[in-house]
């Protein structure tokens, strides 16, 4: 019961956060200089044409009224109409979401599947005093190469020397699953490098922390096999920080995806939002950012849930922050 109550509170707080995001993004979009009219109508448009457009999209209303209309529509699932494509924003978001989702999911999978073992390995093998320098440097390098550098280099190298992979362009999964994978592998790898290094670093720290715990020493004293110690004691107890990190990474990847989508010409959410910002397509920017924020907030709740399951002592406390 207490837990249920706690989750109710958590959901309320999340909703409040989302409301805050909606206000902030709405205000930011309206504060951008350069009107939608100049952008979508061009310099030759007459005052009448501009006024007609403003009326069509409700932009002649006072800002608070606009916000209220927008918010009440969003609650019913109506994200408005794009001024550029003149189609419902929800349709295009729906078409683009799978691309970004696939990109980030592959990246997270790679980060966890490679990062966790790498972290455990470097922690278990770490000798006191040095030895870790090479690993630290390597994972440090991973978090130090910005996506835009890595993406540009990868696109350039793989467009000349393809090696069976595709650098740039998107193949829908429904059309050609193998082609889809070939086109997603490179951007997902570029996107995952940071997350991978970060996961490895966090795992290593977490494992090092656990290794000095008395129950591990006790297990060693009991003569348990090292692999069994890692599996039964270390991983379970080191999991919480790694799971917590996954939420941070997911949020980070949504942003990183934007650069990668741009460089690899993938029709995802990120490139959609950027283009909408540059063209003042208000409804699209608002919907895109709200969606990204919602994903982030839900991820955080899921992580709290997962951490609570792994280690009941931590669950509610971690969420309270």
């Amino acid at each position, binding site marked *: 019961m207490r837990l249920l109550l706690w989750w109710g509170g958590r959901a309320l707080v999340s909703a409040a956060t989302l409301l805050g995001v909606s206000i902030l993004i709405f205000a930011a979009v309206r504060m951008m200089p350069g009107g939608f009219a100049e952008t979508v109508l061009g310099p030759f448009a007459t005052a009448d044409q501009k006024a007609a457009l403003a009326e069509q999209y409700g932009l002649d209303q006072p800002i608070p009224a606009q916000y209220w209309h927008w918010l009440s529509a969003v609650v019913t699932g109506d994200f408005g109409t794009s001024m550029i494509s003149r189609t419902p924003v929800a349709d295009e978001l729906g078409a683009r979401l799978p691309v970004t989702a696939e990109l980030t999911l592959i990246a997270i999978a790679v980060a966890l599947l490679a990062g966790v073992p790498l972290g455990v390995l470097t922690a278990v093998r770490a000798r006191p005093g040095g030895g870790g320098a090479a690993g630290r440097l390597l994972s440090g390098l991973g978090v*130090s190469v910005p996506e*835009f*550098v890595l993406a540009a280099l990868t696109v350039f190298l793989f467009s000349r020397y393809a090696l069976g992979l595709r650098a740039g362009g998107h193949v829908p999964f429904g059309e050609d699953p193998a082609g889809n994978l070939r086109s997603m592998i490179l951007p997902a790898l570029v996107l995952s490098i940071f997350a991978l290094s970060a996961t490895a670093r966090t795992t290593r*720290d977490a494992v090092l922390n656990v290794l000095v715990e008395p129950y591990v020493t006790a297990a060693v004293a009991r003569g348990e096999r090292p692999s069994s110690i890692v599996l039964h004691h270390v991983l379970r107890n080191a999991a919480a920080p790694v799971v917590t990190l996954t939420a*941070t990474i997911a949020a980070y990847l949504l*942003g990183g995806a*934007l650069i990668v989508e*741009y460089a690899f010409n993938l029709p995802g959410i990120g490139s959609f939002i950027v283009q909408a910002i540059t063209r003042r397509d208000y409804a699209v920017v608002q919907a895109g950012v709200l969606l990204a924020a919602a994903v*982030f907030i839900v991820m955080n709740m899921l992580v709290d849930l997962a951490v609570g399951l792994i280690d009941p002592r931590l669950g509610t406390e971690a969420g309270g922050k």
Partner: protein
Amino acid sequence: MRKAIRGLDRLSRAGLACLLVLVLLALVPLTGLAGDPDEIAGPRLQPPGPEFWMGTDNLGRAMLPRVLEGIGTTLLLSSAAVAVTAAVSTGFGVLAGYRGGAVNGLVMRLVEVLYAFPAIILAILVAAVMGPGRPAALAAIVLVTIPLMTRLVRGAAAGVAGRDYVTSAVISGARLPRVLGRHVLPNVAGTVAVQGTYALSVGITVEGGLSFLGLGVQPPQASLGSLIAEGTGYLVAAPWLVSGPGAVLVVAILSINVFGDGLRDRLEPRETRSLV
């Protein structure tokens, strides 16, 4: 601080040394020896040679002074931004952590809202609202780095608030500024220093990302990000345009991260470690 540096391991000290070298390089243009970074000095896209050590760019400007200017711009911009972040985060973090209650709730909700924006989108929005240029890049870095640092400072401050020596100071009638200044601030300083180094590397990345999308510093001023953004169009025609600034950028971020790791090992207890 000196003690802290002495206690660093070799790798972190190497990182610090690299940073110092970069700072020195950034100071070279002040001597006037490097040449005018904006002057069209020779033919376009000249490879590195005796006349132009790092070659020339697509406008025939010497790359050497441009890279030096770029180091300065990037370092100055990101450290100024991190200083602002540190001040704001320490203020709000300490207040929220020490006071708790409604203040804490309000600060944390605001931070949460900012945190929910993907970093680069937040940066692009700031650049769009303010118009591209240094002030916008600075503001973008600040907004992107504030949430995490505020959270961690709050955590550290909340941890200190419950300690016996703080309680006894409050009981013995010490005023709030004194309690904060004498007991709380010194205990969150480590967190701020460590997070500051990470924020610095995030700042460099954000500035670079903005420039990559054409929203960074104003031409003709060079930053590492703007040089790389310009250079990526010339990976074949003039690879020296991207290799120089690219290498410097990676070295800068790497040095900062490695130094930050060392600092963290020295200053922070393991439990409050954070990653990015």
